[in-house]
């Protein structure tokens, strides 16, 4: 019995974090925020295997599971790394596996391209966050029409598109009738787009709504893991800053108010670790708990992240409010994760439905 990470997972985690710390430090994040691309980062990460974490070994990948992916997502969140990890490395291979297509061409080959970083796959799931206004996608024959206000990855060659009827489609970014425009958000560590489809030719991946539902659950776990990493980073930065910053002739870390703010953050974050691990584990091994645990992880991390983002910024005082130490990149990434694919209120409404309350 072991509730926790395996030695391999711990090693993977350490390896990736070393790379992120060395090669994609905050300066690289800033450059991305100011307009640079993330392809170079992504190539470096793919060389380490991140692109292939979920790709079957037959296609050259690592053939690992969602828990491994969650470990990586947490590390990426910890370093607020710009990377198309969620779409290209998680949801794309997951979709193919779930749809039974991963050994079938052209998908088998495309998995190979994705794991090398050559092919980027974005994500457009309008059902995920609650359809607002005219958001939604309908199929007519092999063509899609509709709008997705917030889709992930502005540089993808293709997108996974969820239709209103629960089917999952593949749409090339160069397809006629496909347009995307920047959807600028408060989070500048990842770039989103608004997608408009006008009788746009597309390829059906699965008509089974369970496949789309699975993708949503996996996305929830990944966003939760990302927030977990970002939250832990903010707490560590707050503790470190409080140890250095002196006011009234003593480090502010010696003030009980500051200590208790940090303790409260730790107390909220720590149980989330176990929750995220377990939710990730369930996606591959306990299907009957997969959707609910994913929802719990997404909802709880949404709230805990918001609390930590605010509190850690407060511990940093004025410095936390500036751009100088870049703490706001974490704040905003957590804010993005909270809303993306359903905020806590929405996810909890789903949780109640899922459990037949």
């Amino acid at each position, binding site marked *: 019995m*072991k509730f926790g990470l395996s030695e391999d997972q711990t090693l993977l985690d350490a390896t990736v974090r070393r790379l992120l710390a060395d090669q994609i430090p905050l300066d690289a994040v800033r450059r991305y925020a100011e307009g640079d691309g993330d392809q170079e980062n992504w190539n470096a990460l793919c060389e380490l295997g991140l692109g292939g974490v979920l790709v079957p070994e037959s296609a050259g990948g690592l053939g690992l599971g969602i828990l491994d992916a969650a470990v990586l997502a947490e590390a990426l969140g910890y370093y607020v790394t710009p990377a198309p990890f969620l779409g290209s490395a998680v949801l794309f291979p997951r979709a193919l596996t779930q749809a039974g297509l991963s050994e079938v061409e052209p998908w088998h080959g495309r998995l190979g391209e994705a794991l090398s970083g050559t092919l980027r796959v974005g994500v457009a799931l309008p059902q995920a966050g609650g359809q607002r206004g005219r958001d939604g996608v309908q199929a007519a024959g092999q063509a899609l029409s509709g709008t997705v206000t917030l889709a992930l990855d502005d540089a993808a060659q293709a997108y996974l598109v969820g239709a209103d009827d629960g089917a999952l489609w593949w749409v090339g970014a160069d397809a006629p009738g496909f347009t995307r425009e920047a959807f600028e958000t408060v989070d500048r560590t990842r770039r989103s787009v608004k997608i408009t489809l006008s009788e746009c030719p597309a390829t059906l991946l699965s008509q089974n709504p369970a496949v789309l539902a699975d993708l949503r659950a996996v996305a929830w776990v990944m966003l939760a893991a990302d927030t977990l990493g970002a939250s832990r980073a903010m707490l560590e930065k707050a503790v470190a800053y409080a140890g250095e910053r002196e006011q009234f002739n003593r480090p502010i870390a010696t003030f009980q108010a500051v200590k208790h703010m*940090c303790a409260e953050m730790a*107390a909220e974050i720590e149980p989330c670790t176990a*929750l995220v691990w377990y939710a990730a584990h369930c996606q591959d091994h306990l299907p009957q708990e997969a959707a609910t645990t994913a929802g719990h992880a997404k909802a709880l991390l949404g709230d805990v992240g918001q609390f930590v983002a605010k509190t850690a910024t407060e511990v940093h005082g004025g410095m936390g409010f500036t751009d100088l130490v870049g703490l706001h990149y974490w704040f905003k990434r957590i804010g993005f994760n909270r809303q993306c694919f359903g905020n806590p209120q929405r996810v909890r409404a789903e949780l109640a439905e899922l459990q037949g309350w």
Partner: protein
Amino acid sequence: MDLSYGPRYEAFREEVRGFLAQYGHEAPRGEGLRSEKALAWQRRLIEHGYAARTIPKAYGGYGAQPDILESRIIAEAFAAARVSPGLGGQGISMLVPTLLEVGTEEQKTTFIPPTIRGEMIWCQGYSEPGAGSDLAALRTSAVVDGDDFVVNGQKIWTSTAHLADWIFCLVRTEPEAPKHQGISFLLFPMTSPGIEVRPLVDMTGVANFNEVFFTDVRVPTRQIVGQRGEGWKVANTILGHERGSLGDPNATMTRFNALLELMRQETIDGHRVIDNPLFRDRLAALQSRVLAMRLNDMRILSNKLNGEAAPLANLISKLQGTELRHELEGFAIDVLGELGLAYGANPAKQDGGSWQTSYMYFLGLIIGGGTSQIQKNIISERGLGMPREPKLAK
């Protein structure tokens, strides 16, 4: 991530279930501490190794090697079968491990066997009116007079004092020493002359605790555990054990299920409470936290088992567990609305009035066993490595 206990342990679980099937009917159901039924059941449990499992045979135990999973399986199986897991109490949970660690051979043979059999009931004399969070400020004095200590002072929060045969008690024997170094750990009978026990009614209206007053209580000097002045160390060999169990996540999960059931049954204006989106949201939010705490507990178990460390997972569990439970109980009162106010002899009480009782009781647990403020100090210092408060000027 490997959530199975493995075949050897599953076999052990079957063994426990077999025992429960065969003997479960013998277990007491509400019979008290000193009832023949409870004592017989305790002997039965020890005989099969389901109580005093790791206590050496020499001291009346079963003599098994400590095995965290076996203990967990026993606890789970007994809870699932709703069968009494035998006697608990501070004698068994705190004094016996302490004696095993630092007691003399004579103390072990004298005290452990009757204690684990439930024939000798103990209470704990630690807290005092002036020594709560700052336990080491305790002032109950013990002065040597011939072969005896003479004990004077007062203890509080002594939960089984009115039932106990003996007390294990922290007293100040070296008044001149620094405060942590002047304390000793004594054992003496509650029948000793000079002891007065007064029930301490708490906010739930029940006397769950007592105050204990000592006036010239004579205790033979050999009834000290450890050396004179080392009582603080002796008490701390096991003090940590107590905190984790306050706000037990498995009990909270059981309680959550009762709350869910309540919301399915209660109606407001003709609608089930569970159908109200506001209450659904609050319930789901609680569920996330209950689940996270239960998983955190599995992580703690796993870490113990595999010799891995995640200090924060342990350090936060009392704080979060008690606050969560208090909030859960308060939410149930909101669910019940005016009906949730029913208390005491009111026949309208739902679930025996337990929501109100637990709402208050868990506020008591937020305070007891190290207040939330002390917990946060500990989390920040031991968990996050933040500095202690600077020394004050004299």
